[in-house]
């Protein structure tokens, strides 16, 4: 059996960036990817862009995006719960990453239709994240990295301040290897519903998982059991409200619903529970997951009328459609009288809607109801009426491995000499809560490269 310098656990963006960096530095590397080949790449398969600092136009990015502005955007969404030192490291390094990615086969495309607001800050991958993953696998294979699919790591043996061995199953047998260094890049634990339920309670059983079913946190749990230092709150995660008809796993981007700002959203008792018009949708997208999670049965219902149907991106499932609110209530299993009453109360609270503007904060607000709707408040009166159900869709969990600015893991006694972590499994070191679009790929790329560099230097 080959003696590897470095074993990398996981097969997504962070793992691949680590593998390329380490292999380019001369290390003999193996990637242990738990998914089968068609599902390789973890959540990176579902991503679409990379948030990137830049001074002046860079690749597909226009204008400037400074370190300070980037950091301010991050602090806003995380409510200050972010490690500024590591965040600045990720932000500052992102600029040199973009050409580095291109050199390794990633191709970018102009900002997608419907996402023009991101043209300055986020570089979109041609074909999305799977295109990036495919390009990186081609590159690692050229660099002589061995890739094993359906190789599930079950245990890392921590002996003092070193990982002594890696146990994994592959093709029906258990294998044991003793690489000089190990990089963990195997994501969060969101696909393990039991773990999520321990953290969240029973509501978690109703959550949908937007990405890969293979991020079950096996290695994370194994390391936490051995007192490797962790960071983050197990209930914190990137969660959004998605179409309630989405599959349990791997629904990805197409299950998102962009219609909330033009709607009212009610719970199963047909009551509104939050200001649907608080801000433009991209900025509020990531809070609705938790809002829906807090409702009975973890479900919400979006109601719009005919005039709003074409104001948002189409989603993969057609809306429920009815000529009356009562009929729509019946289709959604909502109390019909209550829904009519909620809609009428809302309609009565709407004022002059002539200033309605779908893409700007238009200040067309309700008055005298709680919760208010502070923008885009137009009465819901024009049949046919349309409805979508909403559920909480978890992207990834934030409880993870605590790392320093060399991506190195530690225990209470100090650094673990030969263990590094990158990507979602350590993103909690930077993101305390909230999420900024495209930042997950930035963390994965920056810390993947750092982990690869450090592990290769150690192994050599």
């Amino acid at each position, binding site marked *: 059996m080959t003696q590897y310098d470095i074993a990398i656990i996981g097969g997504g963006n962070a793992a691949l960036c680590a593998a390329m960096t380490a292999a380019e530095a001369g290390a003999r590397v193996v990637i242990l990817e738990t998914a089968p080949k068609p599902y390789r790449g973890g959540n990176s398969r579902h991503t679409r862009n990379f948030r990137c600092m830049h001074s002046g136009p860079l690749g597909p990015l226009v204008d400037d995006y400074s370190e300070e502005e980037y950091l301010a955007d991050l602090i806003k969404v995380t409510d200050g719960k972010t490690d500024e030192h590591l965040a600045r490291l990720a932000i500052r390094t992102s600029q040199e990453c973009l050409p580095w990615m291109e050199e390794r086969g990633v191709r970018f*495309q102009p900002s997608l239709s*419907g996402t023009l607001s991101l043209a300055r800050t986020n570089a979109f991958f*041609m*074909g*999305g*994240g*799977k295109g990036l993953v495919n390009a990186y696998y081609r590159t690692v294979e050229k660099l002589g990295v061995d890739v094993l699919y359906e190789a599930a790591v079950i245990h890392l043996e921590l002996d003092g301040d070193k990982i002594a061995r890696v146990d994994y199953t592959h093709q029906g047998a258990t294998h044991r290897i003793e690489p000089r260094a190990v990089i963990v890049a195997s994501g969060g634990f969101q696909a393990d519903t039991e773990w999520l339920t321990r953290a969240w309670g029973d509501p978690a059983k109703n959550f949908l998982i937007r990405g890969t079913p293979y991020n079950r946190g096996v290695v994370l749990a194994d390391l936490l059991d051995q007192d490797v230092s962790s960071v983050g709150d197990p209930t914190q995660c990137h969660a959004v409200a998605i179409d309630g008809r989405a599959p349990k796993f791997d629904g990805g981007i197409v299950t998102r619903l962009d219609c909330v700002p033009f709607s009212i959203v009610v719970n199963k008792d047909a009551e509104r529970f939050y200001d649907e018009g608080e801000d433009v949708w991209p900025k509020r997208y990531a809070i609705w997951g938790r809002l829906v999670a807090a409702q009975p049965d973890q479900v919400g219902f979006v109601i719009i009328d005919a005039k709003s149907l074409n104001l948002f*991106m189409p989603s*993969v499932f057609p809306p429920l459609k009815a000529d009356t609110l009562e009929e729509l209530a019946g289709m959604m299993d909502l109390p019909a009288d209550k829904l009519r009453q909620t809609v009428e109360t809302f309609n009565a609270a709407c004022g002059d809607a002539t200033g309605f503007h779908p893409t700007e904060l238009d200040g067309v607000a309700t008055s005298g109801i709680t919760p208010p709707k502070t923008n885009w408040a137009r009465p819901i009166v024009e049949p046919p009426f349309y409805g979508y159900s909403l559920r909480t869709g978890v992207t990834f969990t934030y409880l993870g491995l605590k790392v320093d600015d060399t991506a190195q893991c530690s225990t209470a006694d100090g650094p673990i000499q030969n263990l590094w972590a990158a990507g979602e499994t350590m993103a909690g070191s930077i993101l305390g809560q909230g999420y900024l679009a495209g930042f997950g790929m930035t963390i994965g790329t920056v810390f993947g490269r750092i982990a690869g560099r450090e592990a290769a230097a150690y192994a050599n």
Partner: protein
Amino acid sequence: MQTELLQEARRQAEICNACRYCEGYCSVFPALHAERAFADGDLTQLANLCHNCRGCYYACQYTAPHEFDLNLPAALAEVRRDSWESFAWPQPLARRFHSHGGAIALALVIGFAALFMAIRAIGSEGGEGFYAVLSHNAMVAIFAPTFLLPLVSVAVSLKRFWQEVGGQAMALADIKTAFKRAGKMQDLAAGHGEGCNFEDEDRFSQGRRHVHQAVMYGFLLCFASTSVATVMHYGLGLHAPYGFWSLPKLFGVSGGILLTIGCVGMVMLKLKSDRSLGDSAAWGGDIGFILLLGFVGFSGLVLYVLGGSVFMPALLAIHLGAVLTLFVLTPFTKMAHGFYRLAALIRDAQRKRLS
């Protein structure tokens, strides 16, 4: 057209429209993302815009084993062939060749036989060179209708296509844009210009684009050779045979070489490609057609080289038989795709201009 093929393409297009990750690859996605609902005509247009580069398939997060089971290149390829068969005129011939390589081979044999019989029945009437085998007048009598009638058929089909996709009156600018895109085969280059994902899974390669252009320009050169010769014959009174340094020969020889190499290359690439990402039912018809086209080029070259030998009469019959078959089958084989592609590209340029 077949509703189940359209329905499957519609199901997939709706998923694509909610994702949009492939927007930068080719003409299909911006056109697709401009719609909210997909009428049959919209899907027919998208299908004829698709060049089966497969970039979207390999980049797709929803391909099997995912339950959404996306395979847009195949779904559009099936709608595309169905559209050609549905618009073809006359209908009794529409569904005989696209999926039946054997039918093409049989037609070729009939083409050979027709030429041998014509040579035997008509003969030279005292001409020289090739005309010593079959007179110029006889050739014109055979090839003028077999060239022009298929063009009439194609025109009828294109009119049906244009109505189905909601085409408007054409502007010169749209036609220019379409010819430019086809001339460079930009839709086989992907948005980054690095080619398509055809013969080696997700690796980008210019292979298919290059062999396609060899075939296309090879064919056009051969066609130019015949056209120039016609002008020389009737316009200038210069009769064949022509020397090597004449335009008909220069066009014909270079075109024949390109056509032969291109067709061999195309078959080799197709053999390496994943059949399930195209219209797998049309596999035999496609290969049969490419071999026929390549054979036209190759038999022309052989005829040129051995034109002075005793094999010439037989070679002439074989070459002209192949040309005859190719012409007659134009509306009913993959040959028709060039016309539809161009029409779809014109329609797409028009859509962009009018939107």
